[in-house]
C-alpha cells in the first residue's frame, strides 16, 4: 500500500530540539487496510514524517509510493489523502457543514450528510468550530478528512488534547471506523496506551529514525533497543555480562545476581547486554516459591514502596543494591495484604528476560 523508501528530509526549525532536524533514511511499509501507528516521544519527527506523506514537506531524497505509484512529486491536492492535523485546524469561518463539505463539488449535501452520520456529528451541522468541544472538533476534522473519500487516512495525534475518557471513546470509534471502511490509516501518537488501543502494527520513531517496526506486543515485550525500552517505561533494565550456557544465556548482573535468558533468535549477542524484564512478568511470593521452572531465578528482597495505579499496583522491591518493579493486579495485591517492609521472593523465568544490545543501534 504505502511504501516509504530511504526518505531524507532536513528542516531548520526552532520547534525541534536542535537548530536543524532531520528524518534520516526512513523506510516503512504500511499494508492495505492496516491501522498503523507511528509512535515516538515529543520532537521525534513523527509529525514531520506525516507531513512528508501528505506532500506538505518537499523531501530531500527518497521515495513515497502508494500501490506502486510514485507520489513523491505529487501536490497534496493530487494525493487526496485524508489528513487530520493535531490541532484539527477547522476553518473558523465555516460551519461544521461547510468544513465537511469543503472538498466536495456537485452532490455535496448527500455526501456531507452521509459522512456526518458516519462520524456522529449530524446534530452539529450548523455550528461554528468555536462552539465545539475538543471531542466534537476531533470528530468534525475526521469527517472532513473522510469526505474526500481518501485511500489513506493520516491522523496526527488525533486524541492527545482530549481528556482520558473522551480519548478512550474516540480511539474505539477510530478503530471501529477504520475496520468498517477498511481505510488504511496512519496514526501518530506518543502514548503507549493509545497505541495499544488502535494499532495493528507500530513503528517506533525517535530523533528522525525508525527504531523498530512490529506488532504492539513485539514492541512492548521485545523492544529492539534500550531507547525503546526506556520510552516504553519498562521499569526493569539491568546491565549484564552475557555468557552462552548451552541453549540459554547466563547473565551476570551487578550485585552478583545471575539471570537466565533465551539466546536471541539471530543467535548473535554481545558480551555487554541490557536485560529487560517487564514488571507484570515477575512473580512475587511471600514464602519460598514452589514449582519454580528449572531455569528461573529466585531473588529475595524487601518491599520498599507501593504505588497504587487504579486496577494495577506497582511494588518496588529492594534486592541488595538493585531495585525491582513488580506489577500486581489490584485483587491479587489486596488478597496478599502486602505492606512496605515485607520480606518477599521474586521469580524471574528465563522466557521473560529479554536481552538487548547495551549500545543504541
Amino acid at each position, binding site marked *: 500500500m504505502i511504501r516509504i523508501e530511504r526518505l531524507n528530509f532536513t528542516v531548520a526549525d526552532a520547534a525541534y530540539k536542535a537548530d536543524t532536524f532531520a528524518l534520516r533514511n526512513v523506510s516503512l511499509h504500511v499494508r492495505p487496510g492496516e491501522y498503523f501507528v507511528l509512535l515516538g516521544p515529543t520532537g521525534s519527527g513523527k509529525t514531520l514524517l506525516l507531513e512528508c506523506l501528505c506532500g506538505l514537506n518537499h523531501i530531500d531524497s527518497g521515495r513515497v509510493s502508494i500501490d506502486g505509484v510514485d507520489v513523491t512529486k505529487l501536490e497534496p491536492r493530487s494525493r487526496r489523502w485524508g489528513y487530520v492535523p493535531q490541532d484539527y485546524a477547522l476553518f473558523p*469561518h465555516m460551519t461544521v457543514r461547510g468544513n465537511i463539505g469543503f472538498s466536495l463539488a456537485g452532490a455535496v449535501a448527500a455526501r456531507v450528510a452521509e459522512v456526518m452520520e458516519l462520524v456522529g456529528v449530524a446534530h452539529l451541522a450548523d455550528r461554528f468550530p468555536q462552539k465545539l468541544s475538543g471531542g466534537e472538533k476531533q470528530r468534525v476534522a475526521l469527517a*472532513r478528512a473522510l469526505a474526500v473519500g481518501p485511500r489513506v487516512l493520516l491522523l496526527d495525534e488525533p486524541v492527545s488534547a482530549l481528556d482520558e475518557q473522551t480519548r478512550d471513546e474516540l480511539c474505539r470509534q477510530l478503530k471501529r471506523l477504520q475496520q468498517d471502511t477498511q481505510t488504511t490509516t496512519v496514526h501518530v501518537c506518543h502514548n503507549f496506551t493509545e497505541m495499544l488501543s488502535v494499532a495493528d502494527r507500530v513503528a517506533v520513531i525517535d530523533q528522525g529514525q525508525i527504531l523498530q517496526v512490529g506488532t504492539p506486543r513485539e514492541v512492548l515485550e521485545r523492544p529492539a533497543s534500550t531507547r525503546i525500552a526506556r520510552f516504553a517505561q519498562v521499569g526493569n533494565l539491568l546491565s549484564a555480562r552475557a555468557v552462552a550456557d548451552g541453549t540459554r544465556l547466563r547473565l551476570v548482573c551487578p550485585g552478583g545476581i545471575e539471570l537466565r535468558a533465551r539466546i536471541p533468535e539471530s543467535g548473535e549477542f554481545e558480551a555487554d547486554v541490557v536485560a529487560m524484564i517487564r514488571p507484570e512478568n515477575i512473580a512475587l511470593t511471600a514464602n519460598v516459591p514452589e514449582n519454580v521452572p528449572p531455569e528461573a531465578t529466585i531473588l529475595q528482597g524487601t518491599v520498599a514502596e507501593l504505588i497504587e495505579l487504579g486496577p494495577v499496583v506497582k511494588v518496588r522491591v529492594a534486592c541488595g543494591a538493585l531495585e525491582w518493579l513488580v506489577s500486581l493486579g489490584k485483587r491479587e495485591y489486596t488478597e496478599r495484604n502486602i505492606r512496605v517492609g515485607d520480606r518477599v521472593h521474586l521469580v524471574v523465568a528465563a522466557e521473560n528476560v529479554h536481552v538487548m544490545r547495551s549500545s543504541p543501534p
Partner: protein
Amino acid sequence: MNPSWFRQPRLTAPVAGLHGRLFAASMLAFVGLFVVALAALVVADVGYVVADVGWANLGNFAAVLVSPEILAALWLSLWTSTTTVILGLVFAVPMGYALSRYRFPGRAVVDSVVDLPIILPPLVVGLSLLVFFQTGVGRWIESIGLEFAFQKKGIILCQLLVSTSFGIRAVKLTFDGIDPRFEHVAMTLGCTRAGAFFRVALPMAYRGIIVGGILIWTRALGIFGPLMVFVGAARMRTEVLPTTIYLEQSIGRIEVALAVAILMLVLTAVALVTIRVVGLGER
C-alpha cells in the same frame, strides 16, 4: 456584514484585589489622558469658532461651510481617499501575504523598503514624484495619457504612495497570525495554493484587511504636504479638505479653517466608528 464567527471573544474578569484594580485604573488612565488631550484640542477649536463668529451668526457661518468650494473639496477628498483604499488593498493584500508566507533572498530589505513611506516626511514623496515625472520613464507614462502632475489622478497617486504601507503592515501582521496549517489542510482537501488563499486565508484575514483599509483611508484623507508639491492647491480642481484648511488659514479665515477641520474630524469619527461596529463587530 460582520459574520457571526467573528464575534469578539468574551473577556473574562478574574477576581481583582486592590493591586488588580490599581493596575487596571493606571492602564485606563492612559486611555483617558490621550482621549481627553484630543478632546481638549477639538473643544478649543469649537470654542474659538463660536467666539469668533458669535452665536448669532452661526447660521450664516454654516452657509460658508456648505459653499461650493468646500463641498467640492469634501467630495474630492472622499472619492480620492476611497479609491486609494481600494487600490491600496489591491497591493496590500498580496504583498502582506507574500511577505508573511514566502522566504526569498533580500526579504529583509524589501520589508524595510515597505516601511519607508511611513518613516519619510510625506513632502518628500511629492517632491520625488515631481522629479520622477521629469525623467524619461515619467515622460513616457505621461505621453500615453496617464498625466498625474497637477491632476486629480495625482492626488490618488500621492495618497497611495504615502498610505499603502500602513495597509501592508496591518495585513501582513494578520497573515502572520494565521497558522499556515489551515491552508495546508485545505491543500490536502483538494485546493491549489491559490484556492487555499482565496477560500481559507483571505476570509480568515477579514478583520486585518478591514483594519488595513481603515489605516489607508485615514492616512489618505489627511495628507497635505505631497499634494501641495505634486498637484498644487487649485480651488475646485485639486483642492481636498486639508488643502482647504491651509488655504483658508493663509488668507486669515482661521474660523473657517478650524470649522473645516472639525468637519473632517466628525466625518472621520463617524466613518471609523461605523466600520468598527458594523465591520468588526466591536462595541
